[in-house]
């Protein structure tokens, strides 16, 4: 018997399995979106299927701007998880008043600055177990 080791480090993104499936469907089309509560009208980040303010589970999808600014960042050089390469630029990107946690791709780690403009660059990651494509909302310098 051979030694077996496996873990899926990415979310299930298909609408069949995830109430936020529409977020990923739009992301695959290059759109950044989130939920607006149909009960009280509050817009959330990240998107959510339950509103802690009015307890509604009804929501609409709204597009966010695809550009933002670097609010904080750090470059991790070593000690990254298996399967994730360094150096890796983790950033908090301000988008339309929301703080969005993400990574900056296709950028020089030594040249990222606070306040820098970045734009959405959906990152294709491993397909899900059924072979459907999956995406994460990454950003790249403008």
């Amino acid at each position: 018997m051979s030694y077996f080791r496996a873990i899926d480090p990415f979310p299930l993104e298909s609408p069949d399995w995830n109430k936020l499936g529409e977020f990923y469907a739009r992301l695959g089309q290059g759109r950044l979106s989130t939920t607006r509560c149909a009960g009280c009208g509050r817009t959330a980040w990240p998107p959510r299927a339950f509103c802690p303010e009015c307890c509604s589970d009804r929501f609409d999808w709204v597009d966010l701007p695809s550009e933002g600014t670097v609010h904080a960042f750090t470059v991790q050089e070593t000690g990254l998880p298996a399967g994730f390469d360094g150096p890796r630029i983790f950033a908090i990107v301000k988008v339309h008043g929301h703080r969005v946690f993400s990574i900056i791709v296709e950028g020089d780690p030594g040249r990222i600055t606070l306040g820098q403009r970045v734009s959405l660059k959906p990152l294709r990651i491993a397909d899900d177990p059924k072979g459907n494509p999956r995406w994460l909302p990454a950003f790249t310098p403008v």
Partner: protein
Amino acid sequence: MRKVALVGAGVGKFGVRKATYRDLIWEAGKACFDSVPALKPRDIEGLVVGSVMPERTAFQSHISSLAAEALGIRPSALSARTEHMCASGTVGLRYAYAFIAAGLADLVMVLGVEKLTQPTAEEAILNMGAGVDREWEAAFGLTAPPCFALAAQRHMARYGTTEEQLALVGVKNHTHAAKNPNAHFNKGATLDQVLCSRMISSPLRLFMCSPITDGAAAVIVAGEERARALTDTPVWIRGTGQALDGFQLTSLPEDYAHWPALERTAQRAYRMAGITPRDVDVAEVHDCFAIAELIAYEELGFCPKGEAGAFVAAGRSDYGGDVVVNPRGGLIGCGHPLGATGVAQAAEIFVQLRDEAGARQVPGASIGLTHNNSGMGEHVVMIYGREAP
């Protein structure tokens, strides 16, 4: 509520251990029962086990029952596992405290155990990502170092805290660990070594970070009558608190150098104990990264906001200073076997307040504090005293 005290404590060897999950439980159990010879496992009514990811590292669930069987405990009042990431051990202690204070149990063991170094170093780090939000954080490769790096950057920018001041936390805790045979590291460290160690996530270098470690620790908690019958020197639980600011990094207050949840939980614990920060003689704080210890000084009230860098540089958190912080070597020197950490902190305060800490003894220590956190947004504090509440 009934008064509650620690009556026994023991810690196994922390490190990259050639030992199974069960071996670690046996070692901590042995050390703990050795500290209170009047007790046998069959006397224990309850068991709470703090353990975060045995499903990933030992492929094992049903933890409390496994530990009970390994140690020969037959729980009759309480048996539970607490998983609360890095604070799991102290959260378990709070359960034991509450059960005993309420009269639902009289004698409870709290054990913390973690076998983290399986099967490879890279996979161990991958596992640590389970402690942050899978969908919105861990899927990007996030683990703890970049989060605390943001806090360090902010503290440096806002208060002028220096890389050298961060390094001094590493020097102090590695130096303390050299006097603790159970610590992961026993060689100490110089300022140069810390400042020249490899960069993990700017500005945090290797020797400013806690390592991935295996380990276990256990304490025995008792109601007043039982405690007084078992020992002349029980260590009393005087206060406790827990508070949450948020789970995801972007749910926390924008100023990552300010941890309001720690300030709130500390104030609550101080009020309950009827003491002020000045009364604390010895503290075990959650130095998962050097910046965490500095921010803890401030939120715990050991020094004013923004002055933690100067506080450590002046030696005020070391022997001979205002309060001795992390005499056992902290998470940086002892390692951080998640569920075991909070219990090992309690075990250190137990020996310190009984004058049994040997080379690490803080002279005359009568009030001790532990601080355990899960990320930057959730904090747990315990206050212990030689005198009953």
